[in-house]
């Protein structure tokens, strides 16, 4: 048809990433603020983050309920007013309480900055936690919980965290039906007064940052006094359960969920970048070994993946999949044999090249645009790290060799230490 050479790909090296450093300063009361100027549209992403996640809670659901109730009414606005106003200004917002951090992220057109800061102060520092709204939220949450407990993947991940972090630590314990009845406004007010404080807060702003932002931030947040109260951290200790294998019977399901993994190092550890790369080889991208073997070769599943995540006190790695129940044991066997392979056979040059290049591309995406930049900044900042973490990761992606992969697989994937959780009908 023509002389076009279609067999060889046209490949060029990817340039080194350049990550803009945020501008940082403090409000009059000392609250740290980070500005990341980026993007072409007149929009902003505004995040208020607090050390107010589950790790701080003394009852299950307390951190998430306090967080969800922030927009349910304040000293000056009813919950309906707050939500109507936020909608009126075209704001998209997410309240969230993760294992360590909690807070709110708002997305809006830059010219609304003043109104948004005013409403944010109401939400974050003047909530009233009305009882009627709380009761109705807890009823709804119980229903969502009941629906979620029908899904094998949710049962599996909850059980996995319990196995890995233990029944007594907020990272690990599972929520039960009775926990939904325990919440009351006094508890929420107490949790809020201890953890939603300027002492505990940081502000991350990205996008086309409105010129009056600094001044307005100081006006709305700079005069809130520090509390300087001492809060004791939970005395509960992180400790995995003894039993490594757990099966939950869930009659009538056509697929079984599998979660295999354990606690591990977090971002602060020097081996972490290497572990991220090892994880990619195993199950961290579409062309990973697990995807190739379990999905593309055998067709046992729609998807299988592995991931490594960091928490403040620890980290964890987990392999996740849902498979037809007759293939459950076969899949588990294959997962272990893929791990053994990584511990014994050098990864070939070609495969290393694919992983290196895939991850380099991912790093370009992690710093593309104002939203991605803010998220990447935050996920290093939370651990007391800065962009040098990402430069170390980028360097490791370029230089890691097959021997180091074997070494890491032997150090961090000891099969005897892995927890194995399955949920389904036998």
């Amino acid at each position: 048809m023509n002389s076009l050479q279609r067999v060889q790909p046209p490949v060029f090296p990817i340039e080194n990433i350049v990550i803009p450093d945020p501008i940082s300063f403090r409000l009059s009361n000392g609250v740290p603020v980070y500005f990341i100027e980026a993007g072409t549209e007149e929009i902003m992403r505004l995040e208020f983050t607090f050390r107010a996640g589950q790790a701080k809670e003394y009852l299950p659901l307390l951190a998430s309920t306090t967080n969800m109730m922030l927009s349910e009414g304040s000293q000056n606005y009813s919950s309906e007013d707050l939500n109507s106003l936020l909608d009126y200004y075209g704001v998209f917002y997410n309240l969230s309480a993760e294992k360590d951090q909690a807070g709110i992220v708002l997305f809006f057109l830059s010219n609304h900055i003043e109104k948004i800061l005013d409403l944010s102060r109401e939400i974050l520092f003047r909530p009233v936690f009305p009882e009627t709204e709380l009761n109705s939220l807890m009823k709804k949450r119980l229903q969502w919980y009941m629906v979620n407990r029908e899904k094998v993947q949710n049962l599996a991940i909850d059980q996995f965290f319990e196995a890995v972090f233990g029944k007594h630590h907020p990272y690990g314990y599972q929520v039960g039906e009775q926990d939904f009845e325990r919440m009351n406004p006094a508890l929420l007010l107490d949790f809020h007064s201890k953890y939603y404080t300027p002492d505990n807060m940081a502000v991350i702003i990205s996008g086309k940052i409105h010129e009056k932002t600094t001044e307005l931030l100081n006006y709305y947040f700079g005069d809130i006094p520090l509390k300087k109260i001492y809060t004791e951290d939970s005395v509960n200790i992180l400790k995995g359960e003894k039993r490594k294998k757990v099966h939950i019977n869930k009659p009538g399901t056509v697929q079984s969920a599998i979660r295999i993994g354990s606690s591990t190092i977090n971002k602060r550890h020097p081996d972490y970048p290497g572990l991220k790369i090892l994880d990619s080889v195993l199950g961290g991208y579409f062309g990973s070994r697990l995807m190739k073997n379990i999905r593309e070769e055998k067709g046992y599943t729609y998807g299988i993946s592995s991931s490594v995540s960091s928490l403040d006190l620890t980290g964890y790695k987990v392999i996740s999949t849902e498979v037809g129940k007759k293939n459950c044991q076969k899949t588990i066997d294959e997962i272990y044999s893929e791990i053994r392979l990584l511990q014994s056979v050098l990864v070939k040059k070609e495969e290393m090249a694919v992983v290196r290049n895939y991850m380099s591309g991912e790093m370009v995406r992690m710093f593309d645009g104002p939203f991605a930049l803010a998220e990447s900044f935050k996920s290093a900042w939370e651990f007391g790290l800065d962009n040098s973490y990402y430069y170390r990761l980028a360097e490791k992606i370029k230089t890691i060799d097959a021997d180091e992969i074997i070494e890491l697989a032997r150090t961090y994937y000891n099969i005897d230490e892995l927890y194995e959780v399955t949920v389904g009908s036998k």
Partner: protein
Amino acid sequence: MINYSRFSLDNGLRVLLHEDKSTPLVALNILYDVGSRDEDPGMTGLAHLFEHLMYGGSVNIPEYDMPLQMVGGENNAFTNNDITNYYLTVPLENIETGFWLESDRMLGLDFSQKNLDTQKNVVIEEFNQRYLNQPYGDAILKLRPLAYKVHPYRWPTIGMDIAHIENTDLEQVKKFFFSHYAPNNAILSITGNITYDLAFNLTRKWFGPIEKRKVQFRSLPVEPAQKEEKTLTIEKDVPSTALYKVWHTGLRNSMDFYTLDLITDLLAGGESGRLYTKLVREKKLFSEINAYITSDIDPGLIIVQGKLMKNIDIRHAEEAVNEVIKGLQNRNGIKDEMEKVKNKFESSTVFSNTSILNKAVNLSFYELLGNPDLINQEVDAYRNVTQEMVIEATMSYFVPSNCSTLYYKSTRKDK
């Protein structure tokens, strides 16, 4: 304002280009004008199965994903009733690899039996995971044939019967490819950090040599106007009872689409939507409720779906939903609400257009609708909806004879 240029090749491939120098990436989106509506009723699910087969190797390239990962690229695809859409993003240095990959699989596939067998299994597991192994997962499988009697929208994209997937053979697959996958049945959008000249030259180089194909002529049965209310009750072991109500709409390409879209936003856009405020917050009949309009090209559906709180009678809940919808005919207080949902629509459009990938997907789809400038015009179209239009549309579309209702009842005692 999103600036773009258009050109087409002699083989019929239509191309749209939007330059955005603020990103280190380029996105390619290739839309094939084929969806589940183009399937034979005896062989449904093929368009979606095909999306999977497109990754199993093409004429000159044994595997799609590996070379893309090799240049730091990422890709995915989706299939719906109307289209099959493939997209990728890649660091700008390596955009040519994207052209190389996409053009080769348009040229032809490897058509291996092994790949077909594996992907059939993957799709069956996808069916199990999405529709059977989730509470309420099968509701949409029941709703479509209730609402549609003759139009192919009566089956879902995954297929009306999983046996159709199981029975597909290689001959059918080949025939499907050559009658739907063709330069003259595709729309390519290129967005991101790339110049017009480079985009034009690369498109001509890689897609230009692919010959035009004879594309299967589309002649779909028209769904006759629904005459009377339809209902279906099913009972399942789920935590709570759910209510689904759907109404037929007009064409995607009609002004009514924006009116109905705005109506669903008044009903359920954000936490301050009417259904949420009245039925979740105030009356506590539902634990969650949502309303949306499908973006189907042929007449689609407005869908309202909600999960009931414990011990609420489903007829009572349904009455309350009808009451809220009827309230849209009342002029009082609606003005501020309309301004609110219009602002929200505008800001969501601005946010969506910060992503080169969204821009690429949207440009291709709007070109298929016949007007790529919709990417700049939809906010105005939505802003131009008036109170009169809302009242009129509420009265003409939300009538019982245009409605199908699914009562998805929980068999649990303490429901």
